[in-house]
C-alpha cells in the first residue's frame, strides 16, 4: 500500500513540479508583492508590510472606473450572450436542412483572431474625418444622427464593447449548447409528446432542466471570462484605456506593470488579488445557485 502511493506520487511529480513553479509560486509571490509597501522593482527594496497597496488601488479613480466597466460588461454580456446562444442552438437543433453549414458558420468567429474581429468592428463603428463608418451610415439612413462609437460618449463605447464581447463568446456557447441539446434522449420528448405537452412546457420542464448543467457551466466560465476581459478592449480602443475611460481590471493590472504609468508591481498585485476575490465570490455564489437549480 505504502509502495503504491509512492508510485502514485511519482507519476504525479512532473505535473506537480510544473504547477508548483508556474502556478503556486507566482500566486504566493503575488500575495507577497501586494503587502509590500513602497516596493521598488529596480532596487528590489520596500519599506514594510501593510495594506496600503490595497487602499491605494481602491481609492484610485482609474481602478474604480475599471471595476465599473468590468461589472457592466459582465452583467450585460453574460446573460445576453447565453440567452442568444441558447436561442440559436435551439434553432440550429430544430432545423434539418443545412444544419452542418449553420453550425460551421456560427462557429467561425471562434477560430478568428480577436484582433482581426476588432479590426472589423473598427471598420463597422469608427467615425473618421473622411467616413462615417458602416453603422453610422445605417443610422443616418433611418433618419438618426451619427454617433462616434469609438471616441464618443461612454454609453456608445460600452455598447460597442458589449456587442463585440457577445459576438466573440457566442460560438463557443452555441457549440456547447448544441451538443448538450443533442445529448438529450429523444425518448423524453416522445414521452412528453404522447402526453400532449405543449412546446413551451417541453422546453421549460424538460429541455431546460436537462441542459442546465451546460448552462451553468457557460454562466460560470462566462463570468470568469468577462471579468478577465482585456484584449477585446485593446482591440477596440487601443492601449491607452485609462484616457478612453474604458479600462478593465486586467487592463489596470497591465498598466500598473508595464503601461506608461507603470512600474508598480505592488499595486498591480493588489488589484489582481481584488479581481481574484471578486471572481471567487461570484463563482461561489454560482455554485450555491447551481446546487439549487441543477438536478444532477
Amino acid at each position, binding site marked *: 500500500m505504502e509502495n503504491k502511493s509512492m508510485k502514485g506520487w511519482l507519476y504525479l511529480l512532473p505535473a506537480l513540479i510544473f504547477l508548483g513553479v508556474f502556478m503556486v509560486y507566482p500566486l504566493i509571490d503575488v500575495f507577497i508583492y501586494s503587502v509590500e509597501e513602497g516596493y521598488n522593482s529596480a532596487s528590489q527594496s520596500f519599506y514594510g508590510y501593510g495594506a496600503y497597496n490595497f487602499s491605494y488601488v481602491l481609492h484610485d479613480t482609474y481602478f474604480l472606473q475599471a471595476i465599473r466597466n468590468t461589472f457592466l460588461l459582465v452583467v450585460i454580456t453574460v446573460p445576453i450572450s447565453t440567452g442568444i446562444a441558447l436561442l440559436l442552438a435551439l434553432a440550429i437543433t430544430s432545423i434539418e436542412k443545412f444544419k452542418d453549414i449553420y453550425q460551421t458558420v456560427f462557429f467561425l468567429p471562434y477560430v478568428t483572431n480577436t484582433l482581426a474581429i476588432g479590426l472589423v468592428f473598427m471598420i463597422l463603428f469608427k467615425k473618421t474625418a473622411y467616413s462615417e463608418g458602416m453603422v453610422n451610415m445605417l443610422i443616418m439612413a433611418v433618419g438618426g444622427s451619427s454617433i462616434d462609437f469609438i471616441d464618443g460618449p461612454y454609453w456608445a463605447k460600452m455598447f460597442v464593447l458589449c456587442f463585440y464581447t457577445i459576438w466573440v463568446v457566442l460560438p463557443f456557447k452555441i457549440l456547447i449548447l448544441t451538443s448538450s441539446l443533442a445529448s438529450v*434522449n429523444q*425518448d*423524453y420528448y*416522445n*414521452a*412528453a*409528446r*404522447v*402526453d*400532449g*405537452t*405543449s412546446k413551451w*412546457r417541453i422546453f421549460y*420542464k*424538460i429541455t431546460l*432542466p*436537462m441542459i442546465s448543467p451546460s448552462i451553468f457551466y457557460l454562466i460560470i466560465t462566462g463570468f470568469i471570462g468577462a471579468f478577465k476581459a482585456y484584449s477585446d478592449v485593446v482591440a477596440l480602443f487601443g492601449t491607452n484605456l485609462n484616457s478612453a475611460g474604458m479600462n478593465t481590471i486586467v487592463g489596470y493590472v497591465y498598466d500598473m506593470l508595464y503601461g506608461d504609468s507603470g512600474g508598480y508591481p505592488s499595486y498591480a498585485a493588489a488589484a489582481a488579488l481584488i479581481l481574484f476575490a471578486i471572481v471567487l465570490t461570484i463563482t461561489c455564489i454560482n455554485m450555491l445557485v447551481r446546487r439549487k437549480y441543477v*438536478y*444532477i
Partner: protein
Amino acid sequence: MKVVLQNLTKKYPNRNKKIGGEVTAVGDFNFEIPDGQLIGLLGPSGCGKSTTLNLISGLIKPTSGKIWFGETDVTNLPPENRGIGLVFQNYALYPHLTVRQNITFPLENLKGDKKLSREVMNDKALEAAKLVQIDHLMDRKPSELSGGQQQRVAIARALVKVPRVLLLDEPLSNLDARLRLQTREEIRRIQQETGVTTIFVTHDQEEAMSISDMIVVMKDGYVQQIGKPQDVYDDPVNLFVAKFLGTPPINVFEGKVKGGKVYVGNDAIGDAANVSDQDVWIGIRPEGFILDENGPLHCNMERVEVMGRDVSIVSTNPCSANVTVRSIISSDIKVDRTKTDVRFSVKPHKICIFNKDTEERIHI
C-alpha cells in the same frame, strides 16, 4: 378499446444510397385486437415490432394503411389525441422530477375544462401509484429507485390519464432475470385490473408466451403468425416461427417423406399419409421424444443433463440441423448413461414438417 390495424405499412428510404429503393419496416399488417386483451408483439431485433408499436402510438406516421381505435380512425391523429399510454424501453422518466411529479406530468398538460386541481391530480397520481405498488416512494427521484421500481413509475405515468390503449416497448429488457419474472406477472395483474387493451413488444418469446392473450410473431416487417401462445407453439405456420418459439429450441432435422412415412435418415419416425414424396424439414419439440429401447429414431448419446424436475438427453444425429438433439423427459425415467446410442419414438402430434424450400408448414 378495440384496436384494428388495416394494411398497415411503413417504408423508409434505403440509407445506403447505392442500393437505393425502400426498406419495408412493417408490411401490410392486418390485425383486429379485441377489447381488453394483452397482446405480445414478438420477433427478433429489426423485425418491425417497435415500429408497429410506434405506428399505433402515432409517434411515426404510416406510409399506407389505417389504424382504428374502436370506431374512430386515428391514423392521422397526433399521439396526444389518441388517448394512449406509452412505456418506453428505458422508461424515459424525467430525472429532475420526483416520482409524484413524473406521474402527474401528463395530467398537468390538460387544458380548458379538463384542467384538474392540484388535489385531484395528486389523488389520481396516488391511485395510479397504489396500483403499481409504489405509493411509498412518491417523493423520491428516479435515480434513487431500482430498475423495477422505475419500471412501475413509468407504468403509473402511462396509466394515470386512463388511456384507451397501453403500449409497452420492451418493458422487461432492462431488468434482471428474477425481477423480470416478477414484473411480467405484475404487468399481467395490472392489465387485468384495469382491463385496458395492452400491446407490448418483446424479443423474448418466453415473456410473450407467459402473459399474452395473443401473440404476434413478426419477421422482417411481416407478420408470420397470430394466435394464442399455445396454438402458435404447437402449430407453427413455418419453420421460422417453430424455431423462434420455445426454450430449449425445437430440434430440426433434414428428412424426407416417402410412401406416406416421415424419415429421418433411414428411420421412419411417423406417418404422413396425405403428403406426396419430397425432401422436408422436420421439427420436433424437445418434449416430443419418448425414450424407447425399440424406438425408430437412432441417436448417439452425448450427455445427460439433470434439471431436477426433468432430464434432458443431449445426443447427436447425422441428419440434425442443430449441433445436438435435445430431448426432455421426466426425471422418473431412468436413463442408462453408459450406452453410446439412444433410441426414441416420437409423439405423432409433435412432428411438424416443413417444405424444404419455402419452409412453410406441411400439414400431415
